[in-house]
């Protein structure tokens, strides 16, 4: 099977770098810089994250984007040739949902590929569940998955769902 390039995107602090760190079976590439804004963390991705993962004999190349919209030029660079996309959003920060929706619309307009929305921080209530976020974003329920990006068995769920959807769409 050909390796599959998957882009992991979403607003700042959604857990993109954490997800790739949690899942990668090879040494990751990260590009963290000190933050100068109050975004609730000390480091932020300025170029990309990269990791690899094998799922049911399928090799996945995971490319993480920066979260801030000022780095949107990297979204274009990294989505080039992508065959799938995972858009993460923090379930405990509904104020991020509009940006998540904008970003999803933009990325899919550039690269119409199979995608899954991952709602992070499911282990830290109060938090919006995947069904609620699916309603908010106007997405079908099967495209929205809840997860905790720090926990391997949970972090892998959006990618498992992505592969299932790709198989269904390929068969259809």
């Amino acid at each position, binding site marked *: 099977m050909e390796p599959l390039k998957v882009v992991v995107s979403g607003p700042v602090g959604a857990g993109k770098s954490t997800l790739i760190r949690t899942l990668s079976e090879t040494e990751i590439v990260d*590009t963290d810089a000190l933050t100068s804004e109050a975004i609730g963390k000390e480091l932020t991705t300025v*170029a990309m994250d990269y990791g690899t993962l094998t799922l049911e004999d399928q090799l996945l190349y995971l490319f993480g984007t920066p979260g*801030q919209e000022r780095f949107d030029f990297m979204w274009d660079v990294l989505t080039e040739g992508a065959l799938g996309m995972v858009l993460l959003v923090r379930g405990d920060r509904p104020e991020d949902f509009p940006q998540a929706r904008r970003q999803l619309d933009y990325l899919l307009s550039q690269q119409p590929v199979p995608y899954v929305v991952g709602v992070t921080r499911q282990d830290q209530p109060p938090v919006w569940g995947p069904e609620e976020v699916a309603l908010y974003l106007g997405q079908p329920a099967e495209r929205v998955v809840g997860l905790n990006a720090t926990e391997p068995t949970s972090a892998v769920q959006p990618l498992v769902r992505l592969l299932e959807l790709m198989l269904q769409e390929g068969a259809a």
Partner: protein
Amino acid sequence: MTKQEQLQQILRELKQALPELRSVVVASTDGLPIVHDSADAPRVAAMAATALGLGKRISQTTELGSLEETIVRGREGYFVVYAAGDKGVLALAAPSGANLGLIHLEARDFATRLAQVL
């Protein structure tokens, strides 16, 4: 002098030392413009931070030692990005005939001075 005035002063001196520069942008390592003379500063600042961040990582992964600078060379000129300490980025645009050796020499000095203020 306020921090901003000191940075403006360093920017002026840099442009005096290297009059051939087309533009100069000083940004934070997370891509926000701090002082500059560029109309397109927000975008250039973000790209400079990306170029520096990726340059550092490439340098580390391919065992080149610590990063000196990232250079983009086009047919019409250069875009060069230096680290200014842990928090700052110094980005310069210069025409293709520019003396790159001299630019490096001056820019590294100025990057050190910027780092002390930042």
